[in-house]
């Protein structure tokens, strides 16, 4: 498999046995043709799987979004095209602007700002720590990162449980609240505060570890030079760290944005988040509830398409950043 070299016309010959060159020309050209096909043969299984599991469903969800597709159509296997009616219904619904978009965007902004901000802080802190303590803190980070969203969410639900959660009892014993009278999951702001805490706690490790990896590549002389020039810690961060880490910050910010825009599990498992309290839906949950609770698959698909388009737009920015940094 000396392919890149062979194709570029520099076959690996140094140790080749003598006597081969005679038939070389013809063998070489047939080898060339085989080599041209080979990458596609290797890629074929992946392409087939992705076509069936990603491309085709994506096409179908767009197709469905133009239909009034409910239980009747599902059972009879018929189609019922309504053009852009589903989209008109979504964008004409006050609910989108007063509840779903503020929830979706608010959560994403809060989570991204907090994750990237605190994650960077943790990374800077880790860099200055002695080796042993750096190891201790990064192990804690790894464990936080590894806890599955499902079980992590249940822990926070338990902590804020209205009858015997840790937070309820602590605040109760301090006399701040009367246990049993406060249910944080009912109200939008407190519900989203808990979701934010949950998501941020789970996502900081990725940002911290990535930014730390970036920090370790910044040459120490730059900091020394800045110090000699009389720059304080704050100035050193903005004038040395930030410009050098721009690509790293771009990547973690965009990835966090994509993840935080479509939070589902953390929401779904919280009391009320699983479809019973429409005040706390975001785009993901709304799409899911429309489809699987209301059996309005067409409408659900249209919401899912809107979500996908938003994420695609963010992805494009992401790809442009990657290409600019020549990472591919």
């Amino acid at each position, binding site marked *: 498999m000396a392919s890149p070299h062979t194709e570029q016309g520099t076959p690996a010959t140094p140790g080749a046995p003598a006597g081969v060159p005679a038939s070389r020309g013809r063998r070489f050209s047939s080898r060339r043709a085989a080599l041209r096909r080979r990458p596609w043969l290797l890629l074929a299984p992946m392409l087939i799987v992705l076509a069936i599991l990603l491309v085709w469903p994506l096409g179908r969800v767009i197709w469905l979004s133009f239909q009034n597709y409910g239980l009747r159509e599902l059972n009879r296997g018929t189609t019922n095209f309504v053009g852009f009616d589903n989209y008109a219904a979504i964008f004409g619904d006050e609910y989108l602007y007063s509840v779903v978009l503020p929830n979706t965007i608010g959560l994403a902004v809060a989570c991204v700002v907090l994750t990237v901000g605190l994650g960077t802080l943790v990374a800077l802190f880790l860099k200055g720590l002695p080796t042993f303590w750096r190891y201790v803190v990064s192990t804690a980070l*790894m464990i936080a990162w590894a*806890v599955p969203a499902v079980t992590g969410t249940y822990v926070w639900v338990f902590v804020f449980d209205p009858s015997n959660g840790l937070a309820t009892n602590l605040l109760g014993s301090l006399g701040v609240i009367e246990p049993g009278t406060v249910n944080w999951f009912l109200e939008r702001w407190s519900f989203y505060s808990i979701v934010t805490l949950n998501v941020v706690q789970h996502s900081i490790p990725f940002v911290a570890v990535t930014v730390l990896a970036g920090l370790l590549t910044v040459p120490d002389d730059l900091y020394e030079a800045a110090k000699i020039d009389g720059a304080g810690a704050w100035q050193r961060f903005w004038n040395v760290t930030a410009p050098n880490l721009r690509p790293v910050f771009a990547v973690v910010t965009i990835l966090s944005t994509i993840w935080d825009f479509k939070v589902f599990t953390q929401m779904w498992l919280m009391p009320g988040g699983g479809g019973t309290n429409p005040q706390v839906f975001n785009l993901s949950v709304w799409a899911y509830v429309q489809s699987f609770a209301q059996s309005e698959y067409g409408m659900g698909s249209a919401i899912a398409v809107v*979500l996908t388009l938003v994420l695609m737009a963010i992805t494009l920015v992401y790809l442009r950043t990657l290409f600019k940094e020549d990472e591919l």
Partner: protein
Amino acid sequence: MSRPDATRLTPRKLATAIAQGVGVIVCVVFFLFPAYWMISTSVDADAATRGAELIPSEFTLAHFHTVLGRAGFGRYLLNSALVAVVTVVISSLIALLAAVAVARFKFRGRTAILVMVLIAQMIPQEALVIPLFLQARSLGMLNSLLGLSIVYLAFSLPFAVWMLRGFVAAVPVEVEEAAYVDGASWGRMFWSILFPLVAPGLVATSVFSFITAWNEFIFALTFLQNDSKYTVAIGLQRFFGQNTADWGPIMAASTLITIPVIIFFVAVQRNMVSGLSAGAVKG
């Protein structure tokens, strides 16, 4: 950021040390708290009425007995393990082939393939779940664990390809050239030369595919319709009553789900960081 001189303790160094100590404590508490709270509740005899106590007053394994015995949680663990193993085997195989293609061959469309693999990771599962649910329903594959494993390929595969690409590229081409010159066939080169050298990367990628399938929630929620087919992520919900939650067993079951993930994750994490910063997927 020069290293502190350990021999002399100036007030400034003392202040730094104290600040670092406080920082370490804050970080460890904040990041370990959910895992700690889950495990300590799972062995706490008074979990049902658990108050603000931070250390269980009476240790018990009763919640684990409840979960594995009466509640039959073992079944869910087995289902999850089955789904995850099938996902790992198929996706590793397919991903390795694809990774070799993009890491070793220069061909027209290579960049397009890489871009596609990246984009595939951004497609929200919420958009795929509707059509795939309808399709699985019409094929009669809704309650099938195999069907679920196949669906999971959609998420594990792009990630695995992206990750393995780096590992394959890291194997020096000269090794393969030498084997080629010695007359090894292409297949032999693949299995006897490349495969063993990429094995560590393959292990790391497999662990991540395993965790993806093990943790997956939305498709399991939608596809699995009866109790005997539930995976762990869905099975947990069985411990919630109408208005009550049985926190002891819930946290015991959560612990059973989480411990293997933590062990796997921490074991392979080091291999993954470089690849992750190049833009893969959150664990």
